């Protein structure tokens, strides 16, 4: 897809955010490359979702620099994120159960002519995307209310493929899913990586993270607290970084260099 081989697709430097007296994020760095799944892990309140919302355009940072493809950008609204090629799956299924699959895929960015929506075209693209994800959705016209939690998450992920996304942010995509549904979602994530996207995966579930992530970034109390290659780091090391048993020493592995070549 987008063929920038060297530089990171998304780079965030020195991101900070305060909510009143609470420092949600302090001087956080994060980089994501094409063909890479970066897992963002940390305990509750570590600032993972706050960071995701900034990339998604739902929350502006107080300070810090966001670069997409090497260009400094601001992402003030979800629409701006969409135009920059950032697609997000939010923690609580951000879907409308009263609408069908097609409507949800295009929610907030409906294709339309001068007067009316282009429903046929949107439905055609929906079928194509569902096909690409090999998802088990019965029909593009099924109302969301008739789908299982796993199928809904498939729809949420399929939503990210509308337009020409380069970066996909998934906030706890497997949190409320069964084992089989989780496996399906993880397969979807691998497929996104094969398509050449950069993926940020936020999760509490170490098994999921180790199954699909190439690199693991740990946040603790709103700060970076370590960066690990999934293949090399042990479970204990990561848990230690999450709980704060180990502190990131000043010359900790900078997150910039791709630790594993996936391709």
């Amino acid at each position, binding site marked *: 897809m987008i063929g920038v081989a060297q530089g990171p697709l998304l780079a965030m430097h020195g991101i900070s955010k305060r909510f009143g007296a609470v420092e949600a994020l302090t001087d956080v760095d994060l980089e994501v490359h094409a063909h890479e799944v970066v897992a963002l892990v940390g305990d509750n309140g570590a600032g993972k979702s706050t960071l995701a919302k900034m990339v*998604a355009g*739902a929350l502006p940072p107080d300070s810090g620099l966001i670069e997409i493809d090497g260009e400094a950008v601001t992402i003030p*609204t*979800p*629409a701006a994120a*969409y135009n920059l090629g950032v697609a*997000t799956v*939010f923690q*609580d*299924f*951000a*879907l*409308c*159960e*009263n*609408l069908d699959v097609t*409507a949800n895929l295009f*929610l*907030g*960015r*409906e294709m*339309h002519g001068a*007067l*009316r*929506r282009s*429903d*046929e075209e949107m*439905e*055609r693209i929906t*079928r194509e995307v*569902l*096909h690409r994800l*090999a998802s088990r959705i*019965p*029909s*593009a*016209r099924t*109302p969301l*209310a008739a789908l299982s939690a796993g199928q809904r998450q498939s729809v949420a992920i399929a939503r990210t493929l509308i337009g020409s996304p380069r970066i996909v942010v998934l906030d706890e995509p497997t949190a409320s899913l069964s084992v089989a549904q989780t496996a399906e979602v993880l397969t979807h994530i691998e497929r996104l990586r094969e398509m050449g996207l950069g993926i940020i995966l936020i999760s509490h579930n170490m098994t999921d993270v180790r199954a699909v992530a190439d690199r693991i970034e740990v946040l603790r109390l709103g700060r970076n607290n370590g960066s690990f290659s999934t293949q090399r780091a042990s479970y204990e090391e990561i848990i230690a970084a999450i709980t704060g048993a180990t502190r990131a020493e000043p010359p900790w592995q900078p997150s910039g260099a791709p630790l594993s070549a996936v391709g």
Partner: protein
Amino acid sequence: MKALRQFFGANMRQYALFGFLIVVMAFFAWQTGGRTLHSENLQNIIIGWSYVLVMALGMLFVIVMGQIDLAPGSVAAVVGICLALSIKDWGFPWWAGILFGIAVGTAIGMWQGAWLAYIGVPGFITTLAGQMLFRGLDQHISNGQSVPVPPQIVKIGSGFLPDWGPHTGFNNPTLVLGVIAMLAVIYREIRRRGKIVRGGGVVPPTWVMVARLATVVAALAILTIAFANGRPGTSFPVAGVIIVLLVIFYHFVETRTTIGRGVYAVGGNKAAAALTGINIKKVYFIAMTNMSFLAAVAAIMFVGKSGSTGLSDGNGWELDVIAAVFVGGAAVSGGVGTVVGSVIGGLFMSILSNGMFVLGVGSDWSAMIRGLVLLVAVAFDLYSKAQGRPSITGAIMRGLRSRRKETQGEEQVRPEVAKI
């Protein structure tokens, strides 16, 4: 069963409600010896209830987006008096009076929309305040007097289409309208079928389509004749033509426009709508403005029907309108409901009232029965939702739905895609 399902197709819920409507009509026709089906009575229903049908179109969008409007009756009263006085005291021509009335209604709608969308006062409170505010304003402006309106406006409210052409014994414009409606129904069905085939979908056998079309066309033919064979000089009412045009327009807005989709998204999941970039404030503002715009249209038709404004204009209208929308299948929690359903709901309530009136049922019993109908309709809605089904009268058709797996509806995607 399979045949029945195919016959009804995707819009089963609406057909079910429509079926109820027919049953109720048949019951009253039987009880009154056919008097309720006389053209004069049908014309009375349309003319007498036009304001409810018009406002139901606006209330639908307000309820679907999860809000409520309690003010349209008071808004209509203000519009009525402004319209009448602008013509009587300021010397406005009748059409300028109409434009002025609509401008007043729209401005009031923007006022209410602004309080809801930009200040964040819930619609219930905004419009409860509006109900008092504009009722008082109406009393203040009218100063207790009843102001007559010119004959052109009377024509809009209670007039008929002029007859022309050969002497057929029927009202010709009504016949023409009926034929246009039948052709439109046939054209739409064939076009829709063609679209499904081109999209690779599966359509039901031809006989199903023919049977369905034959039923609808027959119903339209009966209605056309009923409206066309009234006293000389009567026809399908002008008010009815206005309602049909509005229904077509708002059905289009509901099903085919981005703003229509936005209303459903906001009502379905407000947080999700915001995250996907839908402008919730804009949706609130437009829907509330539209509601008062339609209240203005209803007011013009109503003062036209009455011939003059009155102090009780608009009293309690909002309740009839809200009842119509809920009977028509809108969900209390928002996100569900259709324009066509709301109109059928309004027709249902009007035919019920009218039938009981013709039967000589007292207003005490009439009110109690209508209350119970509303209660039962919404209870069905909740019950069928608890059963994991889309909504409302669909519950009544449950027997048919249980076979859904075997008989994939006509709207399915290509099987090969579905299987993967």
